């Protein structure tokens, strides 16, 4: 977690300013649905309603994000945050230069919010980065801090995207790692296809559709083999057959 005693920590811990952005986003969504329904009722054009509601939705989403960054900067008092422009001039602690950069704090707060609970440890790392290298005792300049904070927002989004990709691959990985699962994925399409051809065209249909059936039989096999290689999953071994005492007696 971010050090709650630091000003950056204080920002990251509160979400009062970001609430305004969300209110705008959800109001826009609501308005988009109402507008879409009204347009469809009036003109009966589904695609026109879809296009207009889409434009309203995305513009409200963009406005909401912008508001969550700009409101804490220009209206800190109204949302209950300490005013950034009235910092005491005689403050000499190391955090002071950060207190003056509202946009950096807003971006750091946005990054912390976007990163989510899985990457909560990064908040502290990002906050430490804004203080630069303590060995040189030089704080990064304003443009460098802005670049770092903007990079943190990108990092948060990319981390979340990575999480989503990992979650999406998980069931497929489990299938590739399972011998029975892979067999089922390969065999099921061809069995279904053969069943359908037999049902509709009879045995002769199997000969006339041999090329299509060949593709249906090989495509899942090659896809699974290729994806296994791509995901670096070793091919599962065939499970050993259980030998019963009766088998031994027969021999």
């Amino acid at each position: 977690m971010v050090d709650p005693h630091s000003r950056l920590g204080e920002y990251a811990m509160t979400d009062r300013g970001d609430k305004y952005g969300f209110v705008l986003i959800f109001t826009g969504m609501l308005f988009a649905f109402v507008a879409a329904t009204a347009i469809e009722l009036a003109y009966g054009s589904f695609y026109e309603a879809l296009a207009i509601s889409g434009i309203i939705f995305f513009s409200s989403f963009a406005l909401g994000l912008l508001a969550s960054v700009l409101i804490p900067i220009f209206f800190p008092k109204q949302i209950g945050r300490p005013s950034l422009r009235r910092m005491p001039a005689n403050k000499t602690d190391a955090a002071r230069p950060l207190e003056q950069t509202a946009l950096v704090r807003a971006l750091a707060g946005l990054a912390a919010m976007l990163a989510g609970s899985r990457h909560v440890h990064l908040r502290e790392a990002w906050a430490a980065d804004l203080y630069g290298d303590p060995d040189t005792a030089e704080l990064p300049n304003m443009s460098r801090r802005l670049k770092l904070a903007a990079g943190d927002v990108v990092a948060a989004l990319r981390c979340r995207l990575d999480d989503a990709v990992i979650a999406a691959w998980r069931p497929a990985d489990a299938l590739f790692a399972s011998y029975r699962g892979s067999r089922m994925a390969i065999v099921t399409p061809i069995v279904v296809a053969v069943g359908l051809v037999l049902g509709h065209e009879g045995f002769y249909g199997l000969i006339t559709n041999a090329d299509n059936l060949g593709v249906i039989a090989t495509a899942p096999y090659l896809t699974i083999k290729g994806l296994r290689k791509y995901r670096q999953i070793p091919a599962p071994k065939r499970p050993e057959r259980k030998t019963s005492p009766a088998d031994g007696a027969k021999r």
Partner: protein
Amino acid sequence: MTTPIRLVLDALAHAGPDDPLWGYKLTELTGLGSGTIYPIMERLESGEFVTARVETPRPADRPPRRFYELTGTGRELAADAQRAGTGRTFPWSIRIAGWASTP
């Protein structure tokens, strides 16, 4: 392996045990932005190529840094990356860091 990952691994491999790297230092050494560095570090950490630890004792005047170090597997990966990346030139900052750490 992408060039940013190779750059990060190279920077971590050149870091001494008494001088571990953290996010800001990595951005300076590799020339990459923090938007690229942190997703890479998260991936390397989840793959156990890198271990991370929080700076101790916690400094009073600033948030503690998150130090990254290569694990045994990470060192092997870095060596492989260096072998595979022959012909590529690294930023001058990495080369200077390498020369500076050479006794």
